[in-house]
């Protein structure tokens, strides 16, 4: 039995499928008049976000509440972190209050792994630096399977954007590859990792040639608020070569799926009308995110956890 979800590598192929199957059950729960089950009654989940987030945080908190767990939220701006408390002291303080799981986001890669060595509770990585974002990967795989079929082997997936700095790209690529999909990373050379050794993917810097032969286009957010990390002369030039414009969307296969982890920069990596098109399942990703996170929390805290 798994205790924590720190990296998508914590799950093998069957583990990923198991979470997806569980999420399917939870999705039906979220559609009911009373979208709540008592599965994690008496458990407490703390959400500890050292980095800004709305959707991931709300998604986890909604998921925990729909499982009837109690949710503790640490607000960074008013917490002792402002007074200079160390990460270790903070998480040990939270542990001492008797929580069962901690959902953690941190700008430092590997922070959740460190936390897992300091405290004896389930840790869920909600994004650490440029390292991993495993629940995003799971909801991406879940959403793709709902549309492309449960068997993703042979599905052709293009992940487009700043691969090098993206934790989403890292986790999602590995998850898709685990299920046998063929992943192509599309980015300017400055946004590709220095080495792709060990990555089960191919890379391309020519989006236009990749366009017509993929089943799924996954666009990453360009973090333009961090000017230094842009790694490209201008946003306009990025959009011209790597943005999913209307013109490019027209050259995609008719049954293609368009995904984006959000928040979107409309007009940068994706044209507004493409984001609203029938091929786009971006809002569905958000909806599925709650069900998938319910599945993860249930997997870690319910389902035999006490005897594991």
């Amino acid at each position, binding site marked *: 039995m798994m205790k924590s979800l720190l990296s998508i590598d914590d799950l093998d192929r069957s583990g990923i499928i198991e979470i997806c199957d*569980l999420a399917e*059950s939870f999705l039906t729960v979220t559609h009911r008049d009373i979208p709540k*089950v008592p599965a994690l009654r008496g458990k407490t989940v703390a959400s500890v976000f050292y980095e800004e987030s709305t959707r991931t945080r709300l998604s986890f908190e909604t998921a925990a509440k729909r499982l009837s767990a109690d949710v503790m939220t640490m607000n960074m701006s008013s917490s002792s972190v402002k007074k200079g408390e160390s990460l270790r002291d903070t998480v040990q303080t939270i542990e001492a209050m008797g929580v069962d799981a901690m959902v953690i986001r941190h700008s430092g890669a590997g922070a959740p792994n460190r936390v897992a060595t300091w405290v004896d509770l389930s840790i869920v990585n909600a994004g650490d630096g440029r390292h991993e974002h495993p629940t995003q990967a799971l909801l991406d795989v879940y959403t793709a399977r709902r549309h492309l079929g449960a068997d993703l082997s042979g599905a052709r997936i293009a992940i487009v954007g700043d691969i090098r700095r993206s934790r989403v790209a890292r986790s999602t690529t590995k998850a898709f590859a685990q299920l046998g999909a063929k992943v192509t990373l599309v980015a300017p050379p400055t946004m590709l990792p220095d080495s792709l050794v060990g990555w089960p993917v191919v890379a391309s810097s020519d989006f236009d040639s990749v366009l017509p032969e993929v089943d799924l286009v996954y666009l990453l957010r360009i973090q333009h608020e961090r000017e230094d990390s842009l790694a490209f002369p201008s946003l306009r030039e990025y959009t011209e070569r790597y943005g999913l414009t209307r013109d490019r969307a027209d050259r995609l296969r008719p049954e293609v799926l368009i995904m984006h982890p959000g928040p979107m920069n409309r007009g940068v990596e994706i044209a507004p009308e493409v984001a609203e098109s029938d091929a786009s399942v971006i809002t569905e990703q958000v909806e599925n995110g709650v069900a998938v996170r319910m599945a993860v929390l249930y997997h870690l805290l319910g389902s035999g956890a006490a*005897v594991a």
Partner: protein
Amino acid sequence: MADAMRAGDKTPSGVANSKAEARPEVLFSDGGHFVFRAKVFDANDLRRAITRIAHEIVERNHGAEDLVLLGLYTRGVAIAHRIAEVIASFEDLTVPVGALDVAFFRDDISLRQVVPLGATEVPVDIGDRIVILVDDVLFTGRTVRSALDAITELGRPRSVQLAVLVDRGHRELPIRADSVGKNLPTKKVEDVRVRLTEVDGADDSIELWGPVDEPFDPAITESQ
């Protein structure tokens, strides 16, 4: 723990095992060795019991108008459909049938692995209707308790009744069935195995199995 794994409880292990024909049979998730002990029902007995249960339900409720049958996964769903068929044959009315998965409502979620067995599908608004819960084996009563909680989330029925093929005793909660196919006194360690054509691919039957090393007293079972 071991008790919770026995049939009459919603675990995948009992389902996985039910198709095997060879005796003595091994392969229970607790590692125990089980052997065949007694045939409780053959296909005809089972058909008659379901027919009687169908009539009892309609009789007790003075008709079938407001009924809805909710089967508990896995075999309860199949039995609910059969009861609805029988009712349709003499009442000229089709009672809606739904399926209930109680996994997330169980009270032993943290004690063992509990996975959903199917999707909850309730075709009608159960508010102000008479809900008949249907299951194959009534044992500890914990599955039924979970089902009562699950129903509460779906609405407020006028009443909830329970129909089971086998009541094997050993209740751990104050729960009883309104219609019973067969009262079967058992030992707690024994195992009641229900097979239904549409679920198991084998002929309908109900059998009593027990651990190899546990002495078997046929008188307990025969007395009924």
